[in-house]
């Protein structure tokens, strides 16, 4: 096993200094996701303004991969159009399901390409995707203006 492949410097850096952490107002959609096999959790909010992801804010408990992944997500989608952010979501999900075959496009995925190595570790793919699943869900809720359970009181 090549540890460095999994724990790239970029990942360790995002893990140790996560960007955008904290739950902020305003927001239109919130999602709470749990990884049932390990108990890791994330609560994530999106604030959409005029077709743009104006903010993504979150609190999470988890391993380096899941924390770094949420931090990278924040950097990638904050300020992007909703459409672009969904494209990133698709690309990242595809990369994670590539079983070590994918490399990811550095142009679009930026730091997230560091997760390419994670895709070789099926038990860790879920960790890397947790925040992204929350983002997807929160976005759906924001668009539908579905009132979220607990009205943000969760976590």
């Amino acid at each position, binding site marked *: *096993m090549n540890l460095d492949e999994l724990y790239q410097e970029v990942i360790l850096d995002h893990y140790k200094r996560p960007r955008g952490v904290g739950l902020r107002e305003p927001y239109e959609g919130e999602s709470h996701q*749990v990884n*049932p*096999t390990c*108990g890791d959790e994330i609560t994530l909010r999106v604030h959409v303004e005029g077709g743009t992801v104006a903010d993504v804010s979150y609190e999470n408990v988890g391993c380096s991969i899941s924390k770094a992944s949420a931090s990278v997500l924040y950097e990638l989608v904050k300020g992007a159009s909703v459409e672009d952010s969904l494209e990133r979501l698709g690309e990242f999900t595809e990369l994670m399901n590539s079983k070590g075959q994918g490399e990811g496009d550095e142009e679009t995925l930026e730091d997230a390409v560091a997760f390419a190595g994670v895709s070789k*570790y*099926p*038990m*860790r793919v879920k960790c890397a995707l947790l925040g992204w699943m929350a983002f997807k869900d929160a976005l759906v809720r924001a668009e539908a203006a579905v009132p979220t359970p607990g009205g943000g009181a969760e976590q």
Partner: protein
Amino acid sequence: MEAASKLDVESIRADFPILRRKIGDKPLAYLDSAATSQKPAQVTDAMRRFTDHSNANISRSVHTLASEATEAYEGARAKVADFIGAISHDEVVFTKNSTESINLVAYAFQNAVAERGADPRFVLGPGDEVVVTEMEHHANLVPWQQLCLRTGATLRWIGITDTGRLDLEHLDEVINERTKVVSFVHVANLLGTVNPTSQIVARAKEVGALVGLDSSQAVPHLPVDVTELGVDFIAFTGHKMLGPTGIGVLWAKAELLDAMPPFLTGGSMIETVTMERTTFAKAPAKFEAGTPPVAEAVGLAAAVDYLAALGMDNVRAHEKELAAYMLERLETVDGLTVIGPRVPIGRGATVSFELDGVHPHDVGQVLDSEGVAVRVGHHCAKPTCVRFGVTATTRASGYVYTTTEEIDRLVSALEQVRKVFA
């Protein structure tokens, strides 16, 4: 229209070590595959390789063995799902056998009664009806009987004609607006009948009932495509399809699995747990509490590979030939009466019969002394026995490794029976 058998039975037989076994000084003629099939070396080898190389508990750790074990287990699920034409791999739930699979569905109804906000399709009570047939294996009768007993619902059933077919004359009355679920046998284990499904499925859908199949004797022997069948669930079992004991399958539509309350509860099926309250994982995990049969799933996947390589159309064609040969040859035995369809149409290579004046136990015993293994008894289908006025039958059943020569040996051994009990 049917292709002639394309199975190379001799080379298939070489894969089954047990077929080289002798019973006393006679070679084994194993004609009891409807009870359980034999396992090719490919299945036992795959299990052994897994145990000696990758054994670990699944879904629970990040170490290499756990990751290999999880991939093997989920890979088996994917293989089984593809084999039966499931739309999603997550529609396959691993259980311990067919019996558990059917109980799981029956308990979904029982538990829904005690659950607030349960899906109304599963809430059962007095006035509601459950429909089975008279040719069920006990596994697809007793759970529904118990369910009715516990909820006050009424059990109804479709009868059997004298030739061993489902009597569909009163179908529209038996299945009616009060019917909440119809569960019926796909291929009958005592009679050998292959039931046509479309009419019953259509009627069930018409009245808004859920409809499922006990496919325990179907999946091993016929091409089965759950999407084509149009049913809501089917149950089958590993040990009858060249796989190991200790594993069964429930396939159900994803939407239905989501709506069903959990059955067995414990580890691996939860989302989160506090002392006060538990929320549950999504299906299939929701229905797989505790450590699953991991090595057995690996074995089942190897069995599915084996069957897929033979081609289920070829398996079916081979067994049609076998059935025809069995019926033809058995008819030559004095005092023998076949119970079930007597023509090799809409039936499998499983033939039950009576031998005048000789109890099946005694038939089976004498056959065994000739190396011929058949099953005798009620075959877990007592109501079928009652329908045909017998307490037990002798049943010979073939599979991919069965030869016409073994049928010939059965027939001459039956002559031997007649001599002993003359």
